[in-house]
């Protein structure tokens, strides 16, 4: 059998074979396959049965897919899983291998995963929102379980034995009496014709319970780890094609500036042979080296005239957002009603715009063929980017293929196709492949930001220190984790969108960070008002549940009650907790303040995190560590500063991100709760970091900083 026979052929016949013929001489076929994330040779035709089977909602669970769209059995014993998720460091590749291997009952080594090639894999939705673990992993497991059950049934029929006598172990069933074995590779040929493989994966097959997990629950390393440490792995920015040109794009001097005129010929005068493109407001060049492209662009930019509009500055941004709300800010509905509140309290919290700063900036390589457009790019949203590219370039989506090699960091910042569109426009004009690799400055200024936030909180306490009402309005940043998890009398939580002057989008944990910063800071402020310890105050409002469990656990491990009694000058302890997307976190920190330099140093972080049954402990731990440490940046330093639409700190030397020397003593406890479904862990661990620091700072200095980043030298 040829593996391609698995997929019904349709009109389009772009085969991988043809691609290899074109592949750059520096890239042998094996390497190229590794870029695609699969270590076996296989080929397949273009348009796909699962495109039709996909639910229109693009919900991402890929539930009604035919089995053959998910899995391929190789006669050589290899097994390939097709999945629309991407790998950018969060560990999806290993996790999907584990999910498939677990239910197939095969060793992880023989499972290969082909990720995020829109011509070959199903649309599993965007890789965001911690949805791979709760949605995609079960979908893969169901497909793998279906293949396993099919193997048993096929063997039973073949041998004329009772199904109950057969069990799949180590990739095969054994005959109950004779010395015979029937494995996935033996069945590969049959899978091609068997209608079971063309039918939707059943949803009711039993999946292995966590207590019986063999491969899941283990710490499987990233499958392409060796290529990474040897520098062989090709990230999107590393891809090369024969005849490749490098692109550079003319950027406005400020947000909102419009191009009035430009002398396009200036580029070719500076660099003979350069390709210059203007399509509406898009102006770009492509040349044989990026140095030439930059030189040509600089010549062209020198001739550009711009019309600028008035733009706000970061100094006044919070007033601006409050003015620019898209709907009226709802008033506190409880004020009149709760005249019995003994204490009324209100405060406003503010958060700056921040950038994601993935270490690999946006990169995309575009190539046009007779069949259409292929774009290799680093994005968390392969199918969304395909649609975006199709719209921008005027093509039907079937003629656009997006391939996502594992890339250098996303953090919610790479959902859009801008670099791909730029590369495609340039490649179309240049009639050759073009790579767009954004500079760090471009990434700082032209990638979207995590939204700034203005959050108003009002609350009333009764005589016993209980929250009678809770009114919470988030302006601009979003609704993630908007509602309070605490048992309060009455609660009214709203998100009011605003016209953000900066382009904004998602970020690790979305607005859950902003909402937790405000809520958990407020809880400490209210505790002080009630004259209660912040831990006790929270516990009173958390009678039972998973959040209470992590909070109690972190307090115990940090020795909260003992330590807060041992006050030292300039040293503070803080705690915060929270929940989002089915996972629960509680954090304690110790911070030290240097009053002379106004520097805040986080010396210790203890965090307890719980996201149900743990799928891959090492990877989860890495995600939690990464969240905590990444979270130090926006908590303490990160803030995009801009004056009249011009970013003034858009370089790594002016925008401080966490480094080795910022590393606190770190203690992380993962609570494994096999009785709960597995939730993702790459986001929620970030949310309690900043408020815990703000609370520690307030405790040590008496100063409540209601702003992120938390800075002692700034007016709060």
């Amino acid at each position, binding site marked *: 059998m040829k593996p391609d026979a698995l997929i019904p052929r349709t009109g389009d016949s772009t085969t991988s074979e043809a691609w290899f013929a074109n592949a750059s001489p520096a890239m042998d076929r094996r390497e190229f396959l590794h870029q695609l994330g699969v270590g076996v040779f296989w080929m397949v035709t273009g348009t796909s049965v699962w495109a039709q089977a996909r639910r229109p909602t693009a919900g991402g669970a890929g539930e009604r897919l035919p089995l053959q769209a998910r899995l391929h059995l190789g006669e050589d014993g290899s097994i390939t899983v097709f999945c629309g998720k991407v790998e950018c460091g969060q560990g999806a590749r290993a996790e999907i291998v584990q999910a498939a291997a677990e239910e197939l009952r095969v060793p992880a080594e023989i499972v290969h995963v082909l990720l995020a090639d829109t011509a070959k894999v199903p649309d599993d939705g965007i890789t965001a929102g911690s949805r791979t673990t709760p949605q995609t992993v079960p979908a893969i497991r169901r497909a793998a379980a279906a293949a396993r059950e099919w193997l048993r049934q096929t063997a039973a029929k073949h041998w004329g034995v009772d199904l109950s006598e057969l069990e799949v172990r180590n990739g095969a069933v054994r005959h109950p009496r004779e010395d015979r074995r029937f494995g996935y590779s033996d069945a590969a040929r049959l899978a091609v014709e068997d209608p079971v493989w063309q039918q939707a994966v059943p949803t009711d097959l039993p999946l292995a319970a966590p207590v019986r997990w063999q491969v899941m629950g283990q710490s499987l*390393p990233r499958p392409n780890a060796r290529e990474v440490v040897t520098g062989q792995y090709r990230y999107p920015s590393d891809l*090369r094609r024969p005849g490749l040109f490098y692109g550079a794009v003319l950027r406005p001097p400020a947000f909102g500036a419009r191009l009035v005129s430009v002398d396009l010929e200036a580029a070719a005068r*500076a660099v003979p042979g350069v390709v210059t493109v203007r399509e509406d407001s898009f102006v770009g060049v492509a040349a044989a080296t990026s140095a030439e492209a930059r*030189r040509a662009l600089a010549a062209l930019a020198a001739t550009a005239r711009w019309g600028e509009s008035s733009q706000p500055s970061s100094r006044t941004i919070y007033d601006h957002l409050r003015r620019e709300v898209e709907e009226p800010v709802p008033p506190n509905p409880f004020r009149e009603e709760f005249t019995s509140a003994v204490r009324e309290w209100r405060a406003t919290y503010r958060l700056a715009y921040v950038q994601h700063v*993935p270490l690999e900036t946006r990169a995309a390589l575009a190539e046009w063929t007779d069949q259409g457009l292929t774009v290799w790019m680093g994005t968390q949203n392969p199918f969304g980017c395909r649609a975006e590219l199709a719209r921008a370039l005027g093509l039907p989506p079937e003629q656009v293929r997006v391939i996502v090699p594992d890339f250098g960091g996303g953090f919610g910042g790479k959902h859009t196709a801008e670099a791909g569109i730029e590369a495609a426009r340039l490649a179309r004009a240049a009639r050759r492949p073009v790579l767009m690799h954004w500079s760090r*400055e471009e990434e700082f200024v032209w990638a979207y930001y995590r939204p700034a936030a203005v959050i108003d909180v009002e609350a009333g306490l009764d005589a016993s220190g209980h929250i009678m009402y809770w009114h919470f309005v988030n302006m601009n940043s979003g609704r993630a984790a908007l509602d309070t998890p605490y048992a309060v009398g009455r609660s009214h939580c709203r998100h009011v969108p605003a016209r953000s002057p900066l382009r904004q989008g998602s970020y690790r944990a979305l607005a859950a960070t902003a909402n937790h910063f405000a809520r958990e800071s407020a809880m400490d402020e209210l505790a002080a008002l009630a004259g209660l310890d912040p831990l006790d105050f929270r516990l009173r409002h958390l009678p039972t549940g998973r959040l209470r469990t992590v909070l109690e656990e972190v307090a115990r491990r940090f020795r909260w009650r003992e330590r807060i009694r041992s006050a030292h000058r300039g040293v503070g302890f803080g705690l915060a907790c929270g929940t989002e997307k089915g996972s629960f976190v509680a954090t304690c920190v110790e911070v030290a303040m240097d009053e002379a330099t106004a520097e805040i140093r986080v010396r210790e972080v203890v965090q307890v995190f719980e996201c149900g049954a743990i799928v891959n402990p*090492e990877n989860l731990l890495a995600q939690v560590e990464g969240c905590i440490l990444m979270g130090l940046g926006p908590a303490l330093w990160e803030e995009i500063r801009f004056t009249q639409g011009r970013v003034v700190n858009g370089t790594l030397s002016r925008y401080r991100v966490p480094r080795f020397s910022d*590393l606190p003593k770190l203690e992380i406890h993962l609570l494994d709760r096999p009785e709960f479904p597995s939730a993702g862990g790459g986001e929620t661990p970030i949310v309690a970091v900043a408020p815990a620091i703000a609370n520690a700072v307030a405790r040590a200095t008496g100063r409540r900083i209601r702003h992120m980043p938390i800075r002692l030298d700034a007016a709060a």
Partner: protein
Amino acid sequence: MSQISAEVTSFVTPQSYELLINGQRRSVRTEPGRSLLEVLREDLDLTGTKYGCGEGQCGACTVLVNGQRAHACKLTVQEVIGQSILTIEGLAADGQLHPVQEAFLAEQAFQCGYCTAGMILSAVALFHQRPNPTEAEIVQWMNGNVCRCCGYPRILRAIRRAAEMLRKSS
């Protein structure tokens, strides 16, 4: 890596340069003034050395020049003529991983892995200077290397493990 900046806009004549990279003589014909990083990545197809900032702030482009670490984004091609350059592609000898590479694998010391080549070469350079670095020395030395996935604890563990491996083997 496009970027708007005031650069020489006059026509530049390409020159030939003889470079010594990973023990091999490589000759490139290019305009002067280009960074070693771009020449490695664009002319020599050595893409293991990464671009992260272009201003010496992130360490993604770390290479060894005569055994000392250097930021390839800050060196011009002329500056390294005749110098011995080691990139991540040349670190494993005959398919045998360097102990620092082994240690990074053993500790799973990366998430996206984009900083990894620079981290590994920085650590190798550290061991050239200090075979037994203290914790504080490691942190100080590595502070110019940014990991945005913030895998710092694991990277530190990998470096400690590598130090141990090197001690045992010497």
